[in-house]
């Protein structure tokens, strides 16, 4: 090591922030095995996963959740057919153009505890973050998962966000917006929609529009894996745990 490097190292040692904490590593799960397992989960399993992230989750019984999940999935599928019929195409890019929605494709997001894939900003802007497309598509061969094909993945993300745009334009009639739950006791009233229903329906919308046989929800795990394997393993365990609890009838 040269004098300059030594000085640089010494300078960095004095200037940098605190020493990073050692990262705990989980045992690696083979990707193919993970994909096979994820493909085996049905709509209800993924719905429970969505409800596990729902802030109002504590207000519903298991039976109510199952009912909501079924209706949200039906809503997504129904609107996929209606939109395909209305715009005479099943290609999300064409639908977005016909709906007058701008599609931005910056690379932006990097890793961390929250990985962003795409977003819809009211009233007419969808952003697909290509960084995650690039990272995830590199796993296509290894995983054997068709959803990770770059073009396919772009369409899935776009279709998902398109559903949110559809929701905005049909908020008076679409199930995910009209379904409300009463939060306050009488005589007071505060009716609220259930945020996760919108996500469940958006996944069903994308699957129906693009003719997918598996839930796009599995991308939550796979796309995160491209950034943080430990975090992906945690998400995988979460969905497995929820499915096991469902089997045990909890």
């Amino acid at each position, binding site marked *: 090591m040269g004098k300059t490097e030594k000085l640089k190292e010494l300078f960095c040692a*004095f*200037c*940098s*922030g*605190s020493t990073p904490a050692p990262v705990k590593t989980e045992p690696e799960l083979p990707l193919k095995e993970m994909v096979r397992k994820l493909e085996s989960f049905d709509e209800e399993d993924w719905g429970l996963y969505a409800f*596990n*992230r*729902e*802030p*109002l989750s*504590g*207000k519903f019984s298991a039976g109510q959740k199952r009912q909501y999940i079924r209706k949200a999935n039906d809503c997504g599928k129904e609107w996929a057919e209606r939109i395909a019929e209305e715009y005479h195409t099943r290609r999300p890019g064409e639908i977005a153009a016909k709906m007058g929605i701008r599609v931005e494709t910056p690379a*932006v*997001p*990097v890793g*961390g*505890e*929250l*990985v*962003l*894939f*795409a*977003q*819809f*900003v*009211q*009233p007419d802007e969808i952003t697909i973050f290509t960084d995650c497309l690039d990272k995830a598509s590199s796993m296509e061969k290894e995983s054997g998962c068709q959803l990770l094909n770059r073009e396919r993945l772009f369409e899935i*993300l776009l279709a*998902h*966000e398109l559903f*949110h745009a559809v929701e905005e334009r049909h908020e008076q009639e679409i199930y995910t917006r009209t379904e409300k*739950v009463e*939060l*306050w006791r009488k005589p007071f009233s*505060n*009716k*609220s*929609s*259930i*945020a*996760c229903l*919108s*996500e469940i329906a*958006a996944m069903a919308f994308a699957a129906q529009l693009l003719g997918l046989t598996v839930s796009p929800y599995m991308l*939550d*795990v796979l*796309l*995160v894996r491209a950034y943080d394997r430990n*975090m992906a393993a*945690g*998400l995988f*365990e*979460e969905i497995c*745990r929820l499915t096991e609890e469902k089997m045990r009838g909890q």
Partner: protein
Amino acid sequence: MEYVIGILLLITFIGLAVYAVRGGNLMMGMLIMGVLWTALPLLGNTFATNPDFIAAYPGVTDISFVDAITNVFQSGPEGWGSVMVNVVFGAWFGRVLLQTGIADALIRKAVELGGDKPVIICVLLSIVTTAIFSTLFGAGAVVAIGVIILPILMSLGIPKNLSIGSFMLSVGAGMYLNPVLTGQFLAFFLGDDGKQLITYDDPARLRWAGIGLAVQLLLVVIMCIVSLRKKKTVHAWCASAARKARPGYVPSIALIAPVLPVVLLVVFDIPIILGFTIGSFYALTVCGKLKSFRGACRILNKDFYDGVVDTAPLIGFLLMIPMFNKAAELCVPYFNALLGNVIPNNTLVISIAFALLAPLGLFRGPLTLFGCGAATLGILKGIGFSTPYLFALMVIPSITMNVSICMTQSWIAWGVSYAKVSTREHLKKTLPYAWIICIIMQAITYVMFG
């Protein structure tokens, strides 16, 4: 000679500011400054010839070498022992609130009250966050609460920069009353005998802290209302870390636990460490975590361990600050010689200057006590302002600018990177409100103590 040393001290002060702004390790920065600010005045004392100057500061300009280094490097850190102990007990209490699920339950209750109305949710969660951090302290606690609150805010379509801004400013609002953080500020105000010149339960100071909390929280609420007025919500497809299974049933009576230590201290004069202990055991008992003696020992050990780990990075920094503080006392004659005629001794002028220059509390600048502000305080102390006035004057930018919005604060850096918001976006959203808070609070400080 005193002018030469004064100029050299000023150069090192600017050097620290540049070093801090560039993200340098502050623990090392404080240590280096402690050494420089001990060496330079000792050098000046050796060569000072002006008899008036020497006579004006007895005990400082004639201090012996051994006394000086003992004061700075031994008595300084030792004197902060009490602050450290409070930090550790506070961190333990924080861990208890997290492990029992009380913090999580409080947040969920607020969400269940607000539903899908972004403004109501934002306001309710800001109030809950402020209440929690009026007692809790530490990056570990902020991160643990943040990973619950931030995904909720974002799932409701609240823009990321507003989610982060409102959460972090709410944490800062609670800090006005937080006994652990206040303890760190109070340690800057010790008499020659090592006794505190101002205490946590001083009625006027407590009233001022309560007003500070209310003003900052009110501005957070205004920020939420103004920002969400245009209703340009965002629906993001994102994945966050796996949700752990809930820690178990949390009864409603457990929800008062976060504010228990502060209430016990303010109303019943119960010392804060005992307050933390009572609060912790109350939380563990009502949540059914103390079913056997062995289990209780295990929980106590684990929570204490986790709490201490949470505070470990902070403790290193906190132990270097008193060296810098003590060294700053040695520098007072030289700063006074150089700046004594430049800095006004009128509280109105000082208050206006602090209000207008509040952003200098960012990036460990000269208005935050967790940066170069320690030296600014040293200079202002030399001018002879009252302790309550100086305390409030310095604490406002330290809390509102540094602790609430500055990227050099560990938990803010975490939050901004968690939500994928740029520093510019974050400051653009929060700085105007933080500045208004500082202006209002400086005006209140002038009226109360000026």
